[in-house]
């Protein structure tokens, strides 16, 4: 395996770093498990299935159930990703195909810069500007006219809700997803495009063919974006309403795991089982993100090999 001296030096100097990175992940995961164990032991499955956050100085009276936060996290992240897929795809086509290069490239830069903005900027804008606007112009009409659909059956009160959080989150994660997709789009070998044009395809048909090839990559980018949305804290904590209630209604406030940790970590140390419960939440989040990211990355690799034959 190791051919020359310089190869060996390279191998042995980078080895500790590589091992360190992998070890760090394992250490974090096992630390979380150790920290979370008392909570798993005490509450068992109820920790995942019930919905309560009741800290108490008397450990016997403490009761926690993370169900709303687990469901809320998945719900909000799924919805946000679903909203940002069409946004990102249209941005990709606009930037790479429709606009002339002189306009497309600057727009691409703008999108990339937006992806680098601190999330708290989106969160503050969302909570102070978008949420009241949404409540009065979107949520109230939705509830009034489509209230018979369970998704809109609850009355919007403050506007802080799963819907608001997903929307702000979608806006914030669109640049990331767009950047991923542009990269993928440019990786599609030009022979497909050339072949399509030579057969007399119209622009629109070429885009459809290109997107068809890109489809697995879109799935992968969505998974990566979903994994990021799952862990997003600031935006969600500021817009989701932070209410410990299991609900399917989009207009109701709900909770997510990162938001729960952000809200409760300060004083969790005061109670015996609060901190372990937060660690249990963090562990669940870590596992979910790992699975989503792993699937995403695997699909990307498989796709790259297939598309380049």
């Amino acid at each position, binding site marked *: 395996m190791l051919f020359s001296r*310089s190869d060996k030096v390279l191998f042995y100097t980078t080895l500790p770093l590589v091992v360190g990175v992998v070890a760090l992940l394992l250490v974090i995961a096992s630390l979380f498990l150790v920290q979370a164990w008392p909570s798993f032991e005490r509450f068992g499955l109820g920790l995942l299935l019930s919905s309560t956050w*009741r800290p108490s100085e008397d450990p016997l009276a403490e009761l926690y159930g993370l169900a709303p936060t687990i469901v809320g996290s998945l719900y909000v992240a799924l919805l946000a990703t679903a909203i940002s897929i069409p946004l990102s795809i249209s941005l990709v086509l606009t930037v790479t195909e429709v606009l002339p290069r002189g306009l497309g490239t600057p727009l691409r830069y703008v999108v990339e810069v937006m992806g680098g903005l601190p999330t708290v900027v989106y969160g503050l804008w969302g*909570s102070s500007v978008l949420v009241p606007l949404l409540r009065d112009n979107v949520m109230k009409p939705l509830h009034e006219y489509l209230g018979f659909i369970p998704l809109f059956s609850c009355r919007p009160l403050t506007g*802080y809700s799963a819907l608001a959080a997903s929307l702000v989150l979608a806006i914030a994660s669109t640049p990331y997803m767009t950047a991923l997709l542009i990269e993928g789009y440019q990786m599609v070998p030009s022979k497909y495009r050339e072949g399509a044009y030579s057969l007399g395809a119209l622009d629109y048909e070429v885009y459809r063919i290109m997107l068809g090839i890109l489809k697995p990559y879109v799935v992968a980018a969505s998974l990566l974006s979903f994994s990021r949305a799952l862990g997003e804290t600031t935006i969600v904590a500021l817009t989701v309403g932070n*209410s410990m209630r299991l609900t399917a209604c989009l207009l109701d*406030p709900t909770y997510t795991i990162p938001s729960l940790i952000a*809200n*409760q*970590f300060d004083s969790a140390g*005061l109670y015996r089982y609060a901190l372990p419960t937060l660690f249990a939440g963090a562990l669940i989040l870590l596992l979910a993100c790992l699975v989503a990211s792993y699937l995403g990355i695997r699909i990307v690799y498989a796709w790259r090999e297939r598309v380049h034959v």
Partner: protein
Amino acid sequence: MNNPTKALGGKKTVLTLVVIVAVATTLVAVAALVPQLTQTTTPTPTPTPTRVVISGAGASFLAPQMFEWARAFKEAKGVSVEYQSVGSGAGRDMLFKKVVHFAGSDPPLSKDLYSKYEGKVLQIPVVVGSVAVIYNIPGLPANEVVCLSAEILAQIYKGEVRYWNDEKILALNPHLRGTLPREEIVAVHRSDSSGTTSVFTTYLNKAAPSVWPKDLVGLTVDWPVDKVGRGAGGKGNEGVAQAVKTTPYSIGYVELNYAITQGLPTAAIRNSAGRCVKPTVESVLSALSNAAGQLPKSPLDDWSEIPYLVLDAPGENSYPIASFSYVFIYRKYPDAQLVQALREFIKWVCTDGQKLMVPGYLPIPREAVEVCLRAPELIEVGEVG
């Protein structure tokens, strides 16, 4: 590329060099960081007296006042005080793990913790806070003030009083009959765990025990009003204020200093003498001085009942929702210079410091100053704890 092997070899050397440099930089960075880390995580102060740094952490409510004190104390005595605003719980955790020299906390130690640290930890009241009830009722003239009682507040937060023109509210506000609308009340509360929630719910429990039971008291509460779909949470005082501002017909509670600086419409609360009193510096201080006679005499005493005691205090002009915030310190520290600095700091905080209050923060009453002044005498050199 005339000589590909050579070019490749050159590339590799460069790569190896880069890697070596990267590793070396990492090592240097780590080596440089470690002493810094250990310095901030273990309270081992440097030997010369001018270099003593007092470190503290805790309640975010205390932070603005603590920063002001730190600035003025540095000017007056030349000793730096660092304070991290991490929350009451995290702050005392850091104190117990001996990461910081003192902790700031809104609630005093519970009975359990007190018995665990009895004689080891001093609890010193340093500042008075109060909770204001804010509301947003479109159409209510700005000069009209809504008066509420503990029973009504408790029933609103339980979801039992549903409309602004409920007979119970109108009975306390006869002049607003016809003005208060038949609109549902949206009850906004803190979503993060907070000393403000603790003070507010303890007050409801003390003044209206039949409506607001003991298990609804604490830093975080399972709000009954959420279950009926008329409750909403906001993160921090800002979050609650924002939710109330943008939600018509809502009600919320925030720290008094926040309500004052933001100019939010504030409710009067009916006190134990049956009068409606607005939260002001005078009305809060009046409440505290009426309750001050029952304060413990020493920082080493059990303070766990005090939050309950000072709420709903007697007196015609007393605003019923008030509380102390505390500084916790150990009684013994190994370093003589640190002990000296801590003594001076505490003494300064309860004398000169009380004249430097940030707007909305209130100085402690005379009886509490006496307790506070006892603390410097109790701190001594010895093994920590």
